């Protein structure tokens, strides 16, 4: 199976793995491991955001002429997540397990409901509307450097 949804959704699972590994390490006070896992997580998220924000969302907006709609909400949630990444980074730097747990829990809920909306709706809409250009879009997303 190819298609935009099947291409993008696995990014979510991969990042989830790094997220839980980082959280588990931070809660056990293994700060270096936590930082390493968090950096994998952050790089994965930024890469995924870049694919969506520079390739998928503009293509969707162009095809639907919807600029204030779903992609705008997705962009806003990306911004909220980036804010929480900073909180988590600060907590890692100051070795503060409580602050890390709180920011991580908040991010988890935000991120999971965001992923759900993408996988249940946005990706499916993209798969319906961007059938013809999907191979080209995937090639362009693949070209984005990690």
């Amino acid at each position, binding site marked *: 199976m190819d298609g935009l949804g099947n291409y993008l959704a696995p990014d979510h699972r991969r990042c*989830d793995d790094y997220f*839980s590994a980082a*959280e588990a390490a931070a809660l056990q006070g293994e700060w270096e491991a936590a930082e390493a896992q968090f950096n994998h997580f952050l790089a994965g998220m930024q890469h995924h955001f870049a694919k969506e924000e520079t390739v998928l969302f503009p293509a969707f907006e162009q095809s639907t002429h919807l600029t204030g709609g*779903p992609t705008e*909400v997705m962009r*806003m949630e990306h911004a909220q997540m980036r804010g929480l990444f900073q909180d988590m980074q600060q907590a890692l730097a100051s070795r503060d397990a409580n602050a890390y747990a709180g920011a991580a829990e908040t991010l988890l*809920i935000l991120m*999971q409901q965001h992923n759900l909306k993408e996988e249940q*709706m946005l990706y499916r*809409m993209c798969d319906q509307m961007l059938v013809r250009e999907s191979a080209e879009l995937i090639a362009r997303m693949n070209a984005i450097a990690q």
Partner: protein
Amino acid sequence: MALAGLSLEQAPPLSVPLRFFLTAPLFAFLAALLLLFSGPTALASRWSPALLAATHLLTLGFITMSMMATLLQMLPVLAGAAVKQPRLVAWLVHVPLSAGTLLLASGLAAGWKIGMLASLPLLAWAMLTFILVAAYSLARTEARNATINAMRLALGALAITALLGLTLAAILAGHAALPALKLTDLHAAWGLLGWVGVLIIGVAYQVVPMFQMTPAYATRITAWLAPWFFIMLLIWSITVWWAEDNAKWVALTGLAPGLIGFALATLSLQRKRRRRAPDITSQFWRMGMASLLAASGIWLVAQFSPALSAAAFYPLWLGMLWIVGFAMSVINGMLYKIVPFLVWLHLQSRRPARGAIPNTKEIIPDKMARRQLRAHGAALALLLCAAVLPNPLVYMAAAVWCVSCALLAWNVFSAYRLYHRLAA
């Protein structure tokens, strides 16, 4: 596809879901308080006035109240189906549901016929409005998944429960001559198994994998369980009505395996969770699944053991395990995910300058939630003991339960107060 649902401009104001979540624990507290003041007589039988009243305070005031709000909250995320005029809908459902539940419970507790009858139009209005609003959203969505299907079935079960409830009230008021005992069993089954059970099953498909990062439920479960369960409930109802002696075979082969399978699948997914951080919501869910297993097991045994099914504590155990142990635990756990997140989200959109915004664990601290989890677990255990030995254990059980409900109310209220302090 409903694009509008993804747009945040249409996200309802915080007051819409929060009024339900703030009221629900108060109803649970009232139920516990009623038990405390009624004492051992409340547990004399499943038909005692105090127990009937407490049951409706819990099922309508706590469970239905919070499940309606959860459903309205999940529809936009899952189905892209935003509810139009959310403020108006909240008023039209919340006020009559609260007033109707209070009247019905006072009517049942005190044998006050007028109160009971007065509750009926209010409850019917709340149910009808909610069912129409939710059904409209669910009918329009093109999103297809097992949760949405389960929500549709659960709504159908709610409508059936409400109709059976109205019929029972008509019988009690002397306006209809139908077998009240059978109808009560059907009313309880459609409410507890259909509306509560099927909706929790459908919601679990989403939230269990999401928050614990477990694998997804197997497709053979999600595709079949809720429809299978709904159809079995229909067959069971028909059998109860026309061939009651055979109903146990439907329960044995259709209903109980579905419930046990669901509980075991959920526990097994939780064991495979990738997120290892301790999580209070999941602990509530585990308590809920253990209670579900216990309730189904006892029910199964009772089908073949006249001694158990005749025991005075048997129906009480079933009700306590299902309502307090299963439904309340699961909902209580969900509240600790939903309420802090909603407060955080709305603070975020009101105060773009971050930093000053507390995270979800600062909005409801784990310490407070864990304290309430322990109180809830203790209350459940004591209630089960009190069913066997009402005097004097009912006082202890009810007192601990009051504490648990008060702590929950306090935790939700603190989150709301924090929002007001920071958003002002």
